[in-house]
Structure formats: structure tokens, C-alpha cells
């Protein structure tokens, strides 16, 4: 099985084959022998060419966050046969400002139709007793404001659209 992989700004191909208890993983043409054993829910012990790693494998949309002893590394991947790796394609068009965390809208600093500069404060959110100001990702006109003061929102909730 071949994967298109995107990791730390690199794009690589990784092929996985299995024989008995070990896997052969070829990353950009370089083969590695990997003994992979589950050591608990979302954890695995890897012996990779003789080097030992305990990895946490946190599932994310389109890939994993791999927790290694010194780093947490985001790995986006998809099967090569299913098309090109486009996990990180940036959307163009209006800028959507969404809630970066669950919390409460404390204040709405702008209204629809208003021109804002890049970095201008839009919304003040409170989460875990701290107030955080959400700023405009770029300059533009506020197209719509979905945020209302006092509203409790989940991560990813659409708050403001700037065109």
C-alpha cells in the first residue's frame, strides 16, 4: 500500500508491506524494517532498523499526530491510488474566522459592513477564565458576523467572515 505523505512541510511517498510480524516501510526509496506492536490503546512500540521508539498515535482528520519522546509530529497521509495529496491545500475567497477553542463570546468588536485592517481585534472570547482577542487574518470588509455576545461556541464555529 502506497501513501502520499505530508510531514513538516515535506511531501514524501511511503510504501508499506508486511511479512510476518514485521513491516517494510519504504520512504522515498529508502527501505526500513519496522517491528510494530500495539502497546495499548493508541500506543505502539516500534523497532525501526534496531532503534526503539514508543509512539503515541493520535488520530486526526486526514492523518495522525505522532507523539515521539521529544516531538509531536503531524503526519497527513492518504492512499496514493485515491488521487493526489491535497491535505494542505489552502482555500481562497473570503476569510472565515472560526473559534479556535470552545468558549464564550464576551464581546463583539466589529459589525457587518465595516472595513477592518489586518490584525484588528474582532471578537473577545473567554475560555478557561482567560479572555482572548481574535484578530483579523487580513484586511477587508466584514461580510457577516455570526458571533453574538454571551454565546457559547464550540471549536470551529464560524464567527466572522471577511471578504
Amino acid at each position, binding site marked *: *500500500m502506497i*501513501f502520499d*505523505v505530508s*510531514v*513538516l512541510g*515535506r511531501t*514524501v511517498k*511511503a510504501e*508499506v*508491506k*508486511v*511479512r*510476518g*510480524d*514485521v*513491516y*517494510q*516501510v519504504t*520512504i522515498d526509496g529508502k527501505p*526500513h524494517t*519496522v517491528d*510494530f506492536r500495539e502497546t*495499548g*490503546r*493508541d*500506543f*505502539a512500540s*516500534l523497532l*525501526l532498523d534496531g532503534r526503539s*521508539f*514508543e*509512539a*503515541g*498515535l*493520535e488520530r486526526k482528520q486526514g*492523518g*495522525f*499526530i*505522532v*507523539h*515521539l519522546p*521529544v*516531538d*509531536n*509530529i503531524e*503526519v497527513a*497521509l492518504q*492512499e496514493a491510488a485515491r488521487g493526489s495529496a491535497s491535505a494542505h491545500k489552502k482555500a481562497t475567497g473570503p476569510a472565515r474566522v472560526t473559534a*479556535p*477553542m*470552545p*468558549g464564550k463570546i*464576551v464581546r463583539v468588536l466589529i459589525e457587518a459592513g465595516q472595513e477592518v485592517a489586518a490584525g484588528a481585534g474582532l471578537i473577545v472570547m*473567554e*475560555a*478557561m*477564565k*482567560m*479572555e*482572548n482577542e481574535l484578530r483579523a487574518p487580513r484586511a477587508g470588509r466584514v461580510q457577516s458576523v455570526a458571533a453574538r455576545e454571551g454565546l457559547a461556541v464550540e471549536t470551529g464555529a464560524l464567527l466572522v467572515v471577511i471578504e
Partner: protein
Amino acid sequence: MNFKKILIANRGEIAVRVIRACRELGIPSVAVYSEADRLALHVRRADEAYEIGPAPSRDSYLRMDRILDVAKRCGADAIHPGYGFLSENAAFARACDDAGITFIGPRAETIQAMGEKTSARRIAVEAGVPVVPGTLHPVTSDEEIRREAARIGFPLMLKAAAGGGGKGLRLVPHADDLATAALRARSEAKSAFGDDSVYLEKAVLQPRHIEIQVMADAHGNAIHLYERECTIQRRHQKVIEESPSPFLTPELRERMGALAVALVKKVGYVNAGTLEFLVDKDREPYFLEMNTRLQVEHPVTEMVTNFDLVKLQIRVAQGEKLPITQADVRQTGHAIECRVYAEDPERGFLPSPGKIVALRVPGGPGVRDDSGVYEGYDVPIHYDPMISKLVAWGRTREDAINRMRRAVSEYKVLGIQTTLPFFERVMRHPDFLAGDFDTSFVEKAFAQHEVKREAPWEVAVAAAAIQAYRDRQARRGALTQSAGARPASGWRVRGWREGPGGRL
């Protein structure tokens, strides 16, 4: 007189910490919890637990009436307030007295005198303890804030008069920033402490934040347990503490300890407390404020002095004399604490609440983890984002740092972002290793001086690709026929098998 039962008016790791001390002393413990906290660890660890209201703190953990009602009904004769919530609330200490329940902390008058920050500054001046120049009275109007700011000069600090813990606190670099900062500081102060009055202080340049732990009994005995270095902060909240401070000379250490004991004796302080000082680049200490409670970072002191501060608190509150004198207190070795927050250090330390899907906690020599969470626990949005305190002890500072780095590498929290990767980098930062940092370390030195290192990305790719492969196989119902899931029976399949079909 020994307490029959102790109620802990708090939640999370500190409630668990107090429950542990109670259990070791053989005293039954009572937890209280909000509707959001039925599954919190302190509820699971206590001997008894009672619900006290909805999730918001003001409807539960700040409801004195409900907490006292629970205490009376369950027969608790003492209340430990932990830190935060009601711990520095004089009215609560008084209400406990009126109900015939011992408040494990200082007397209500002392909390009031030292808890109101400007009053504490006045008392310090009277006791001959140096303070940072600024207002000696709370300021409540924007007009007065502008006037005082002009008198003191910029840069200055705006602080909640009733505050602590970095809430309602703003650095104001220039006059232009004053209006916004005042608005935000007063709004935060209002919601955190129910009081929007503030005070102003001249900002000390390149300051170190060093505090002295004190402990006093009701018989006039007071000691200090040396310092904690709390300079590494983000958003004015501590993230790493250590003891001893690499910045203090033995003379300054003794001097600050003596100042702390003098102030404590002056106000007739009882129980555990902490005096916070700013020490400027010329090693001049300025008294900042007193925390009339147990501190988050108390384990650092426990590790280097070998005294259990919570048990001392309980014994002193029972009316006992301090079982130790100043001569018994020695700093042995070095301890570092990292506060593990449910926050994303890559995105400006934004809160990252949610479910901890998997958890591995470090152990081994010299490592202590004071945690309030467990695998499967959902970190709620309603409370402070600290989930645990990781502490490492070593014979020297270098040993402690190496041990902390090792412990951090063993610590795995999956499902939410935490500050652990940030600590791994701090423990390798040359300025931190050299003990050369001030309170701007996180924003300036650390951000500009990121220690580059080649991440083991190929290992991550191999792990992710194999897991993805296994997931595909599992979905196809073929996992039982593939690697890893088969018992090690010794038989081997010849030849490489190719996915996704898993055919031989």
C-alpha cells in the same frame, strides 16, 4: 485536637493533593463538585463527595453557603480551600468561624489585610520591607487611573486590587495603551474576583520573580522555607518554578527570608503563605504581594526541604505548635516544576480543552506528578486549564534539568494539546540552562532563540503509515490475518504480502 473530617473546597489536582495528605493522616476527606465535575479525579479519590451546583464557579465552587451546608451535614470540622476559588476570601474564612468549622489557613483579618493588595503594600512599608513604587490605595475610576499613570510613568503594570494568579493583570508599555488595558484588566478582575478596582505599579525592568514560602503557627512561631524561582511565565502566569533560584546569592537568600519572617510576625500570620518579590537586575528585592494560601508550586519546596506543607497546614490548623524550627529547614538538591496546561504552545498558548484519549505518566527516581486528570477524562472549559504539575528533583540544577527532560519525554497526553513540548524545548534552551532569564523569557528569548533540531520525521512517517495500513486492514476485516495481531506462535509467512487485500 485532631480533625474528624476535612472538606476540600476545591477541585482538580490541588483537591487530589489535599485528599492524599488527609489519607496519610488517617482523616476522612470530603469532596465537593459542580455538575461538570462528577467524573473529576478529586470526586473519585475522596471518601465522600457532594454536588454543589452548576458548572460556572460562581454557582458552585464559589458558593460559600452550599459548601458550608455540605460541611455541616456531613460532619466535617475543617475546610481546606486549596488555591484560587475561596482560598483568599476573608468572608469565607469568617463564615467558617461562625459555623464552628476550622478554616485551614490564616485568620480572616489577616486574609483581608494581606489580600487587598494595596493594604498589603502599606503593611510591608510599615514592616520595613521594600515595595515597587506605585499606588498604595485601590483605584476605581478611569480618570484616577489616568492621573496615577501620569504620576508613576510608563511602562507600568495594572493589577486587580483583589486579584492574583495573573487574572486582571496587564503590562502597559505606553500611554496610548492605557485605555484598552484598563478596560480589559477591569473586566477580567470583575469576572474573576467580583471587584473591578485596580492598582498601578511601575514596571520593574528585567525582573526576576522570586517568592519566599512561610509557615507560622498560632503560638507566635514563624519560619521560612526558602525561595522559589518563578520567573518563567507566559501571560503573567507561572509555567516553570524551581528551588533554589539560580539568581540568588546566599546573602540575598538569607535577607529575603528574614524580611518574609519579619512581615509574617508583624501581621500575626498563621498557616502557610508566600511572599512574592520582584528582584531587579541589580539584585534588589521588592515586595510584590502576599498569597495567603498554599501555592500551586508548593511541591518544589517540598522536594528540596522534605517537609509536607499540606500536612503542616493541617497540624497548625489543629492548634499544634510548628514541629520544626528555622534551623531544621535546609535546602537539599534542586527541584523544578513544569505546569502542564491544556494549551497549545504552538498557537500562543490557546486553551485546548477536550477528551484525553490516551495518557502515559512518567515515573522513576526523583519524579513526581501531581495530576488532576486520567485517561478518558474530559478536560472541561469552565476551569483553569492546568491538568498536572510535573516535578523533578536532582542533586544539582543540571541533574534536575536532565531528569525533567527525561520525564517530559516519557509523558504522553493524546487528544488535547499540552505545554509538554514547550517544556522539552525550554529544558534545552541555552539561557535556561545558564540560569540567565527574566520574565520576558517566553515572549522574547525563547521565541527568538528556538533551539533547532532535526525532528525524527521518518520515524513518525513509518509509524503513521503502518497505523494507517492497519486501520485499512481492520476496516476490511482482515486484521486477524495480518501482522502484529497474531499470537507469536512461531510460524511465518513466506514472501512479502502486499496490501490492501492482504492476499498471500
